[in-house]
């Protein structure tokens, strides 16, 4: 029986549009390999009702959130709250990676303590992406976006390949440090002079990435 991943990926403003794209590419890659099945709650399916139904019926081991969030909640399409302390128990025994802002500071702890999730990875501050000023509606062609896309993919593919959470996160952090170096030292094509800002944004995400729960958790 194939392992299951649940992905939430709303799309209704520029930040969610970018995350929708990032997670769509990831989904295609996962499906191409074929060893894991994906439950895709995208756009209008990213509702609390569909989210809870998918958790109850399909019982995915890994849940990947993309979109807006806060200290105590994660949103879906048009800002509808998907997860907060009222339904956090539905995360029991699961591994969570939340690519949303702030959630690792409070919700991450609640997910472990009250929800009995096995592990929660997320950001305890804003999640930041630098975009090409001329391509903010076409993430596919946005070169500034690439390092952020790569680091997102790195963590998830590492987890899916069977590497434990702590090592997956450490490898991702190492990759971010390498990118910061790369954007500072090498001759990166930098049409708008954005490399210094990209480095700072990568550093921001590096410092905000936090793990709660069992670091030895394996997908």
């Amino acid at each position, binding site marked *: 029986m194939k392992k299951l991943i649940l992905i939430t990926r709303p799309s209704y403003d520029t930040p969610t549009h970018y995350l929708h794209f990032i997670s769509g590419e990831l989904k295609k890659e996962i499906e191409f390999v074929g060893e894991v099945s994906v439950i895709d709650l995208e756009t209008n399916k990213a509702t609390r009702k569909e989210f809870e139904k998918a958790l109850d019926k399909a019982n995915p081991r890994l849940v990947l959130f993309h979109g807006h969030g806060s200290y105590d909640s994660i949103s879906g399409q048009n800002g509808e709250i998907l997860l907060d302390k009222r339904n956090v128990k539905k995360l029991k025994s699961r591994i969570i990676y939340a690519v949303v802002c702030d959630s690792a500071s409070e919700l991450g702890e609640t997910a472990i303590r009250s929800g009995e999730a096995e592990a929660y990875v997320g950001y305890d501050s804003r999640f930041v992406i630098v975009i090409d000023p001329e391509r903010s509606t076409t993430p596919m062609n946005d070169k500034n976006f690439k390092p952020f896309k790569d680091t997102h993919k790195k963590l998830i593919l590492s987890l899916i390949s069977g590497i434990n959470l702590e090592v997956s996160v450490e490898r991702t952090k190492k990759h971010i440090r390498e990118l910061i170096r790369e954007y500072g*030292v090498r001759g990166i094509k930098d049409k708008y002079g954005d490399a210094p800002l990209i480095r700072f944004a990568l550093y921001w995400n590096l410092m905000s990435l936090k793990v709660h729960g069992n670091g030895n958790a394996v997908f």
Partner: protein
Amino acid sequence: MIDDDAKTLVIARLETLNQDSKILLMGEKGPTTVKDMIDEVRKESPLGKKIVELQLSYIKTLASGAIDL
């Protein structure tokens, strides 16, 4: 309240960047420019305070050699 020297240093660093460069901050509906980031630091908003905290930490990390320039 942000220390004045820290605020001046961070604003000076941000002013060296392309003012029209854009970042997406999850939690905001649209893009934020470097110019907006400087305004947040000047206003000492929660976001401005975070920018200062991370910029100072970033400078220290670069200075320590933990990440090469």
